């Protein structure tokens, strides 16, 4: 092996170690929360364990009826932070309902657009609920983003998810490079491993579709 190739192999190994260590807690969080999402283990019950309170606030609501502008206006006035979802006007357009959520907390909002009365149902979840929410949290769309710090943090979280995803792919490619450069016996045994994983995937993907 030339000195250059040796250097490449050495640096690839170093990068593999550093990326792996950087990702460790992310892998644990996403791996474990992925298992939680796929199963309904009694110990990880979060919905039945939630703590709920309801309260009301009175605000002045402008005549704006574009739903995202309205949501941001209401959120600013009632001073709540989080991701926005399930926006819905009632049939008579008097009530406007939506959900504000962040890991561990969810607010169901019902705004009376006529008198400005806002009914807020707050739900607090346990650590299992937080883990689930972190797993499914995604990048807010431009319309969903506001000037609140939670929007910035949600965007940061989603950037972290991108970094984790790309790094995992790099980690796999780095591993493949180490495998290709491995001694002959390890190479062939590695080939069986990777082919096993690949065949299993292909077989299942074909069966699924």
């Amino acid at each position: 092996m030339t000195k250059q190739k040796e250097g490449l192999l050495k640096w690839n190994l170093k990068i593999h170690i550093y990326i792996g260590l950087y990702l460790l807690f992310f892998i644990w969080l996403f791996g474990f929360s992925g298992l939680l999402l796929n199963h309904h283990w009694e110990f990880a019950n979060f919905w039945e364990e939630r703590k709920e309170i309801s309260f009301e606030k009175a605000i002045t609501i402008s005549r704006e009826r574009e739903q995202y502008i309205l949501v941001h206006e209401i959120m600013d006035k009632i001073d709540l932070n989080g991701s926005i979802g399930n926006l819905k006007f009632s049939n008579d357009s008097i009530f406007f309902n939506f959900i504000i959520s962040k890991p561990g907390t969810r607010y169901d909002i019902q705004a009376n657009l006529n008198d400005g009365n806002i009914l807020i149902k707050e739900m607090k979840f346990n650590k299992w609920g937080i883990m689930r929410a972190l797993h499914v949290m995604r990048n807010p769309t431009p319309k969903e983003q506001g000037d609140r710090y939670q929007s910035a943090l949600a965007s940061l979280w989603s950037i972290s998810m991108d970094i984790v995803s790309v790094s995992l792919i790099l980690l796999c490619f780095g591993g493949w490079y180490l495998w290709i450069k491995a001694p002959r016996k390890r190479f062939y045994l590695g080939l069986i491993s990777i082919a096993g994983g690949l065949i299993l995937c292909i077989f299942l993907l074909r069966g699924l579709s």
Partner: protein
Amino acid sequence: MKKYYQVVKDLHFYIGLFISPIIIIFAFSALVLNHDFTDWQDDWQEWFFSVNDNVDKTAGFTIPAPDKNDIDYAKDILNQINISGEIAGVFGDSIQMYIPVTKPGYRISIRADLIAEIAYIHETKTNFWKRLIWLHKMPGPHNANIRGNWIYTKIWGSLADFFVILLLLSSITGIILWYYFKNEIAIGIIALLIGFISIASLVIGLTV
């Protein structure tokens, strides 16, 4: 400790290679889910009942035995009309039954007329991105009481669990291996700390 080095190294090496194809699929689909690459947040209700607007084909069936639960009843009808897939829900009454069925690449909306014993079928093909998303999200947390009613969803779910467990095992063997690379301890600790601080600060910020 040194005598375990080769065993741990082999485990890390072969497990890592074995799970690498599926890790790439999940990592890539996470990127897709994280961004608005495609309009993946569909109106489920709309496609559940899309057979009301479009019918591609019809098929006859005989009414299954009434002693079955809704899912088994729907499965019996699906078997007769030769359609397979994960049943996303069962809606209806004694006159008709709606059975939306999903699998990667397909969405099938079925209306079974229980009086005329005819099933009306509307099939939609989904794109590559939605196929990936299906794989990432199945079986998932929703509709827990009926999810996994198709054998392939069940196998896929178990396999996803298996791969996650192998990934966690691979991360543990990775840490043990790092211990043997004495030259990498210092920078490794820094990488570990940066990772920990990144995740901890974000989680704290997001939950407060």
